[in-house]
């Protein structure tokens, strides 16, 4: 979320139509569907769903909501009225209106993490935790600590939180508030001890030069007692008088500039209060010349491209420690980093695309050979899913990793026109661990929640969705889903203004009951979505059936062979395993037809190996 991006997109607005013509010539335009014209309302908006059921919707926690805090960029009429009133006040012919009570997003819900059966939901004003072990979320902890955006992650009893705004104070206070106010500004990563929910405590606060917009946990590959945090700051650089390690400027004038780097924070887990920055790597440097500002310089590529800022920051980094890789969504570029030495990440590839306005976040597929990048065109506070908005702008860009190089393949945008009253653009999501497919659930702000299949990177398509109408039919208030993540069998989605939603997958044409069952069985104690782990599917009839369902859907298996697999799976489900038959089936499945699609080849191979193991069971 970024208020200032609205500026860039307003400036680009005059040229949008020209760009739209060019972009739409390359890709089909987005059209209306059942979720395009839902009725408005804060708590009673119309809903539409396909392949998803809303199980629970939880209103914001006490202390984290005020209807007066709802905010949207002023409309042209409102802006004109404001200017007229200001002039009238100056002329002495009108009384001034009271100033707005809140700054934008003062109480917005933001990112999430899951640990020990508890869901943690960040907020610009702190965070809340819910016990979800009984299904319906039960509020168990509220912590107020303003500073935005409240991106958070969990490790054991430690909760890490990003603070980026100047208003952040070391002691979670606020100027103008009652009681003692700490004068010391804090922008960076806070660490809380949450071992005792009746006595949460801040134990450390690591100051950084550009604050912390997002952060990502990176476990040490060698020392279980060490956790690293990759910090992405996107805000202005602090004065050296405020924080001595900081100085501003372009690298040509100042080689020490705090721009053009990320912060690597080392957290000794037996003494987390000693957490500190250990390096600020120049991950955007030119590989040959060493020039610090080695990537996109900012501006527009060609006449119909997006305007994008210089690559002097990452917005978000997702790591895949088992692969030793990180994917960075970094302003004007998507980048791939080798993190086998976490203190010294090194860039192995970078991607630029003229349709990408702001590289925002990244998600690896399970195999680690594809990355879905998002583009937060308009900063999340603009309506960017209207009929006139290009289908390749504010979308997902799906890239493959080929011999260590990022290669852009295609775009996916929410396939539904949304109204001008709905802020809508690609935002945060995570993988749904269905074996044999690359599925991601994703939040699109007031565009709702969408599940995209990007197994074939050239042909991404939507599998399921959930959406609500706008907060208000006539005026855009910034709201909608910030993040939608798959956590242990359910989708949890944080709603900026409305609280929290819990959804469950429903089988349909594009997703079978077995595929859902296989995904729902993948469990983890702690999930920080930007620290990906490889799902491991235990052999089960559901996993076998999932592969079979996929092969049948894509006509990727010969009918007779499919029938034999179906019979074997049914027998297995009934507790009868014909070991010799399983071995035979394994050998038959191992013969991959030459014309098989890549995904089908992988499914046949996985199924063959599964039956191979089944045939050898003791």
């Amino acid at each position, binding site marked *: 979320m970024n208020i*200032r991006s*609205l*500026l*860039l997109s*307003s400036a*680009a607005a*005059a040229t949008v139509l020209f760009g739209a013509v060019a972009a739409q010539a390359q890709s089909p335009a987005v059209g209306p*569907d*059942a979720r395009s014209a839902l*009725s408005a309302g804060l708590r*009673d908006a*119309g*809903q539409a*769903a*396909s392949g998803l059921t809303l199980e*629970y*919707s939880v209103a914001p926690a*006490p202390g984290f909501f005020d209807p007066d*805090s709802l905010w949207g960029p002023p409309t042209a009429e409102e*802006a004109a009225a*404001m200017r007229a*009133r*200001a002039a009238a*006040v100056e002329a002495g012919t009108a009384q001034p*209106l009271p*100033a*707005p009570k809140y700054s*934008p*997003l*003062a*109480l917005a819900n933001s990112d999430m993490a899951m640990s020990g059966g508890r869901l943690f939901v960040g907020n610009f*004003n*702190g965070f809340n935790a819910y016990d979800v072990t009984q299904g319906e979320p039960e*509020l168990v902890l509220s912590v*107020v*600590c303003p500073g935005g955006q409240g991106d958070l992650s969990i490790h054991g009893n430690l909760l890490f939180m990003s603070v980026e*705004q*100047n*208003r952040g104070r070391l*002691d979670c*206070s606020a*100027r*103008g508030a*009652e009681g003692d106010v700490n004068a010391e500004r804090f922008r960076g990563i806070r660490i809380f001890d949450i071992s005792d*929910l009746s*006595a949460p*405590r*801040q*134990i450390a606060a690591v100051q950084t030069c550009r604050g912390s917009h997002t952060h990502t946990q990176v476990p040490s590959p060698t020392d279980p007692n060490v956790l690293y945090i990759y910090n992405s700051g996107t805000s*202005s650089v602090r*004065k050296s008088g405020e924080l001595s390690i900081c100085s501003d400027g*372009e690298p040509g004038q100042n080689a020490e500039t705090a721009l053009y780097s990320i912060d690597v924070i080392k957290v000794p887990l037996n003494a987390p*209060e000693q957490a500190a920055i250990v390096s600020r790597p120049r991950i955007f440097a030119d590989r040959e010349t060493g020039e610090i500002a080695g990537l996109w310089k*900012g501006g527009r590529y060609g006449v119909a491209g997006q305007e994008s*800022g*210089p690559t002097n920051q990452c917005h978000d980094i997702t790591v895949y420690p088992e692969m030793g890789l990180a994917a960075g969504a970094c302003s004007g570029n998507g980048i791939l980093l080798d993190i086998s030495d976490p203190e010294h990440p090194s860039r192995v590839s970078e991607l630029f695309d003229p349709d990408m306005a702001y590289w925002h976040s990244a998600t690896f597929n399970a195999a680690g050979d594809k990355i879905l990048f998002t583009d937060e065109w308009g900063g999340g506070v603009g309506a960017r899913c209207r009929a006139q908005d290009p289908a390749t702008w504010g979308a997902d860009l799906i890239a493959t990793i080929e011999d260590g190089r990022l290669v852009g393949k295609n775009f996916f945008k929410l396939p539904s026109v949304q109204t001008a009253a709905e802020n809508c653009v690609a935002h945060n999501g995570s993988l749904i661990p269905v074996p044999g497919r690359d599925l991601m659930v994703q939040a699109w702000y007031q565009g709702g929640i969408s599940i995209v299949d990007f197994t074939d990177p050239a042909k991404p*398509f*939507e599998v399921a969705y959930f959406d609500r109408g706008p907060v208000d039919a006539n005026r855009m208030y910034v709201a909608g889903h910030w993040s939608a993540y798959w956590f242990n069998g359910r989708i949890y989605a944080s709603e900026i203004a409305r609280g929290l939603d819990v959804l469950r997958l429903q089988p*349909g*044409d594009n997703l079978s009951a077995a595929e859902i069952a296989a995904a729902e069985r993948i469990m983890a104690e702690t999930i920080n979505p930007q620290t990906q782990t490889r799902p491991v599917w235990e052999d089960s009839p559901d996993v076998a059936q999932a592969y079979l369902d996929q092969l049948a859907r894509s006509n990727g298996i010969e009918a007779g062979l499919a029938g034999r697999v179906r019979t074997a799976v049914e027998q297995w489900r009934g507790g009868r395993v014909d070991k010799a038959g399983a071995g035979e089936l394994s050998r038959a499945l191992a013969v991959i037809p030459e014309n098989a699609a890549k995904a089908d080849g992988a499914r046949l191979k996985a199924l063959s190996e599964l039956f191979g193991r089944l045939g050898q069971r003791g």
Partner: protein
Amino acid sequence: MSLTTALLVAAVIAAPVVGQTPPIFNPGAPGQGSRVVSAAEAVELSRTGYVDADVRFMQHMIVHHTQAVEMVALLESRGASPLVRRLGERIGQSQAAEMALMQEWLGSRALPTAAADPHAGHAGHMAMGADAPLMPGMLTPAQMTALAAASGPEFDRLFLQGMIQHHQGALDMVDALLDDPQAGEDPTISDFATSVNADQSAEILRMQSILSEL
């Protein structure tokens, strides 16, 4: 793909907050304990204010940006290079968008958009001669006259030099704002200041590169 199972539900599934909710903690500095606050106090903690320096910054930047828009208006009839013209148009659009944001911020607080003291707040420019710029980096009346009189490649050169000087002034104004420990706490202002810093630094680099090739 088919979405035939699309299902319209106009139901309210807002679970009301029932029964006991846990206390709301407001942590202290690292190593300190937390205090318990009421829901009303928690909401109150989310509010931010602004100081006079913030208001002056917004008012002064409007004056500053107005000149950039005036400079861009000269491009159409006097410039030579299409590259400079395109860049100038983009600068004009972004400065106009930023001016609207500043006017709205001031207007929604019933604050005047015009500064009462257009020369105040920047000690380096206090010696006001007849040809003094209004704000840091702004072109002096003599410089503006020279620009308006030039045409062709000479105009392009003066335009780029002038706009680099102008943008540098905006960076100085942001710098002065952030130097004030009381200022820049309103998230809209700090985001805006970040935006000015980032965009104008990038534009300066681009202008310097074009200027070196003229």
